[in-house]
């Protein structure tokens, strides 16, 4: 502090805006936003109503169906995607353990939520990624947005989401999709940009339209990268479903949150491991599926 004694104040203390200015500005923004939300609340509610209904329906479908049916369907899906006995048997074992420890219903809620969120992220992410790959200007605009989405702590954007949509599944889902969509967009963009220029030139030389080029050349050749993006998106949705439990999404995440609040060591780990098991099932299945799509790259002339 001795150094500061002989110096002008402006060098020693950062000349911040005065507290009252900041408070005033904050108030204006907060009030403005709240007012906006309040005046449009009925429209917003009506807009998200179908989504709400869909989410409720899916959750009920997963939870109320008899567990043997759900398990069978799950195993069929896992097997038909991965064509691997090991993955299928592992899935069966993991789900039976989850059931045994009384977490079946919670696991189903989480599963339903993750499935919907991943679907949304993929359906929204791939077209955005394609647009980014096609137009450099879209890329230069979307990239910084993705940077913000990936680095902004998820709790921060939960605030406006909750302000607009209230507490419940829809805001939870929106938060999860915002968190999970960047790798989908980025890897779609990257995959398409990495497609061999010579093959693209050949497609042009035969007179392909842009849509034919996308459908026949760019998308299939970018598929390994896109599959990696889907895999990442699934993992990130699962991770975020836990955080989203703070805004009213049920399932395993809610149990974890309760365990943190009450320092229930065992409950926390049980639910944590259940999440890990579901994550591994998703991961192995989607990776094996992606690999199967690429079987043509494995056979090499010898």
């Amino acid at each position, binding site marked *: 502090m001795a150094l500061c004694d002989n110096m002008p104040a402006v060098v020693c203390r950062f000349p911040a805006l005065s507290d009252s200015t900041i408070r005033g500005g904050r108030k204006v923004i907060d009030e403005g936003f709240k007012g906006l939300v309040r005046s449009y609340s009925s429209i917003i509610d009506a807009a998200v109503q179908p989504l709400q209904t869909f989410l409720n329906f899916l959750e009920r479908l997963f939870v109320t169906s008899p567990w043997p049916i759900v398990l069978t369907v799950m195993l069929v899906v896992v097997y038909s995607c991965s064509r691997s006995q090991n993955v299928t048997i592992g899935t069966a074992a993991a789900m039976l353990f989850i059931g045994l420890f009384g977490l079946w219903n919670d696991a189903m809620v989480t599963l339903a939520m993750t499935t919907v969120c991943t679907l949304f992220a993929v359906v929204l992410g791939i077209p955005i990624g394609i647009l980014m790959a096609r137009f450099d200007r879209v890329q230069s605009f979307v990239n910084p947005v993705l940077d913000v989405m990936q680095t902004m702590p998820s709790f921060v954007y939960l605030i406006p989401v909750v302000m607009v949509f209230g507490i419940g599944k829809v805001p939870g889902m929106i938060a999860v999709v915002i968190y999970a969509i960047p790798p989908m967009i980025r890897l779609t963009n990257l995959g398409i940009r990495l497609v061999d220029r*010579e*093959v693209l030139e050949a497609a042009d*030389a035969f*007179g392909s339209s842009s849509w*034919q080029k996308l459908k026949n050349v760019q998308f*299939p*050749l970018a*598929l390994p990268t896109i599959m990696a993006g889907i895999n990442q998106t699934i993992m990130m949705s699962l991770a975020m479903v836990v955080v989203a439990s703070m805004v009213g999404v049920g399932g395993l995440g809610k149990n974890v949150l309760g365990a943190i609040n009450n320092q229930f060591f065992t409950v926390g780990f049980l639910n944590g491991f259940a999440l890990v098991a579901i994550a591994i099932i998703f991961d192995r299945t989607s990776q094996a599926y992606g690999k199967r799509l690429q079987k043509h*790259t494995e056979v090499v002339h010898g």
Partner: protein
Amino acid sequence: MASHAIEIRNLYKIFGPNGVDFIDRVKAGMSKSELNEKYGHVLGLQDINISMPAGGVMVVMGLSGSGKSTLIRHINRLIEPTAGEVLYDGVDVCRMNEADLRDFRRHKTAMVFQKFALLPHRTVIENTVYGLEIQGVPAAERQKRARHWIERVGLSGFENHYPNQLSGGMQQRVGLARALTNDADILLMDEAYSALDPLIRVDMQTVLLELQKELKKTVVFITHDLDEALRLGDKIAILRDGKVVQQGTGQEIVLNPADDYITAFVKEVNRGRVINVETIMTPLAGNPEGMPIAAGTVLEAAARAMTAANQTIAHVVDASNRPIGSIPLAAIIASMVTPAEHDQHAQAAA
């Protein structure tokens, strides 16, 4: 389908963001190096004028960086010209709108690439139907036509293999089958055989020559190999630094190289396989002597026939078996070795 000629007129290509701005200065004589050093633009092609024969093989030859791959991409406009015309059937390809150009590429041209450029996720047959598929030809029809050409290029039995499973030579056969299945008038071959082993390359040249005998397409073939150019080309244009240095038949180029650069090139050529007997025969004086040799026979074949028959003189006969000239074995041998002054020129050039 009758084939049509391709006319390239006053074609210029300047690579760089403002190529058009420099076209007048280049036409006024600005050099390639000046353009590059002062303005950062690259002169790809300058003042190209070539008429490519209908139903014949036009070879464009040059070393890397000579602009030959740039030139062939102007014919189906994969590269936009800076100035000039590419006329096919009286229509300037460079002025077509997007739909017309796509149509032109679909129905009039087919291209074979140096690195094959096959779709790795599609099997041989799926690759071969590609051109027809994007034209919207029904599946059964395109399968039928693709199978025909797969068989013609000698790939029967490999229809359901992936490109990865095939050798380079076989992959290029797929490339050729894909181009031929399109049934287009113009066949563009961009260094199509340059990536292949020498033996397989000769093999593929034979395939092309045999197909061409019956198909009579207008083929544009790019190569850096003079032997390949001489073997395939009905007409050859030699490119250097984006300019045509010489064009003509193989014989014309070998016998009368335009400058030291081309002299150096043709020095290593096996002249006995390029020059025809009627080029060096002397007009018939008196009665035809010795054995008859058909016009169009190359010197090497003539020498072989004469040696086998133990003759030192022969006469050349035309298509209707009329004698048109005489040719002694000594003259044949003299023409088969590279002339001494060519050697000196070549050394001076090097």
